[in-house]
């Protein structure tokens, strides 16, 4: 089979062929596929990161621990594991806005955000986010950052997994953690959007 321009049918056949050989070697079962996929379809996703962010917005002690050692702080909430073994949280302020990218592959903090969306893994975001972040945020994500705020882009070139603690939206004084967590989006923890406004 030609390597170039495989169709979905050709890829699916190749995967099935490889899967059949790995099944015979005892490395994979169909039950294992179902189990593993179920975790990232139903259990691990950005709703977990949102819980941590909402806690940080309401509990200064937790916020301090999160910024000091995100991996350890997230354990308090039962959050952690694969692709989040070494997490570092970046706090947005009026002076600095943070955003994450992986220019070399697709590194992403799975325990708090789940597996990455396709656009995060594709060449366009990876190439441009370090080169013209202000333009990318404004033109591709509709997220305009004032020139007086530094944009700091974190290229995830090692096993450190960065993610963003967005600014708490105004008008949310006295809100519960649950209400606040609903305002925390995947994009706000990547740094390509703000948390949702209070309505």
């Amino acid at each position, binding site marked *: 089979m030609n390597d170039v321009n495989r169709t979905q049918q050709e890829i699916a056949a190749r995967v099935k062929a490889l899967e059949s050989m*790995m099944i015979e070697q005892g490395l994979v079962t*169909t039950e294992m596929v179902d189990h593993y996929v179920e975790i990232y379809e139903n259990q691990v996703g950005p709703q977990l990161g949102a819980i941590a962010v909402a806690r940080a917005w309401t509990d200064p002690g937790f916020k301090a621990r999160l910024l000091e050692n995100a991996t350890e702080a997230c354990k308090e909430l039962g959050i*952690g594991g694969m692709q989040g073994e070494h997490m570092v949280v970046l706090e947005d302020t009026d002076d600095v806005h943070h955003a994450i990218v992986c*220019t070399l592959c697709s590194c992403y903090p799975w325990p708090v955000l789940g597996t990455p969306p396709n656009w995060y893994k594709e060449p366009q975001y990876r190439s441009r986010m370090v080169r013209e972040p202000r333009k990318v945020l404004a033109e591709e994500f509709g997220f305009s950052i004032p020139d007086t705020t530094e944009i700091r882009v974190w290229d995830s070139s090692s096993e450190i997994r960065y993610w963003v603690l967005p600014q708490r939206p105004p008008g949310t004084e006295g809100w519960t953690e649950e209400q606040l967590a609903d305002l925390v989006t995947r994009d706000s923890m990547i740094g390509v959007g703000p948390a949702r406004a209070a309505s």
Partner: protein
Amino acid sequence: MNGVFDLGGTDGLGRIGPTPAEPPFHHDWEKAAFTMQLGCFRGGWFSIDSFRHGIELMDPVVYLSSPYYEHWLHSFEHHGITKGHLDRAELDRRTQYYLDNPDAPLPAHEPDPELLEFVSAVVSAGAPADRPTDKPIRFQVGDLVRVRSVAPFGHTRMARYVRGKVATVVAHRGSFVFPDASGNERGEDPQHLYTIQFDAAELWGEEHADVNTSTTFDAWDPYIEPVSEHGGVTA
């Protein structure tokens, strides 16, 4: 290696097309490919670094134009075949069979509770990459450093857009598995890891840089050398 996967700063690739939300998997074959990575780890086919290198060795045209999880498939095949876990002719034969018979079943097999426990354990505990070393910490926060201007063959995380550029050390992260060793089948060789910060003007030139922006990059000790206050590299 200098390859197209090293995308930082590449121009002309077009619009990003972000989505507000996405399902984790867009096709059933992606679910199997996703899981086979854990099977390969369990079978000792690769480390995370050599897994990444298997992707980097893809045909660059295919790399830029193929769906993401197809990248993984190429790495499974590369390591499976080169390390003797897979016979390419047999893989090709089965591929043709499933192409001709897409609904043909996978080989009958028994459930294996150990594999399910393995998945649960890996998901919840992960695989930490920090390792002790007795090598000295060469740099302190605030030090000026220059990324070496070299073009290694094989796997490295020294992206091209930072080579030769001057940055400020903003954190020492501890010592970690060195990808340039692990990704090239040369053991773990732990090295100190630093986060270094570049002003956009240093990376792209004042006239081409977005205003008030910076980029941080995680650099293992061998990637960087000290810079004196006058801009020269110190001995």
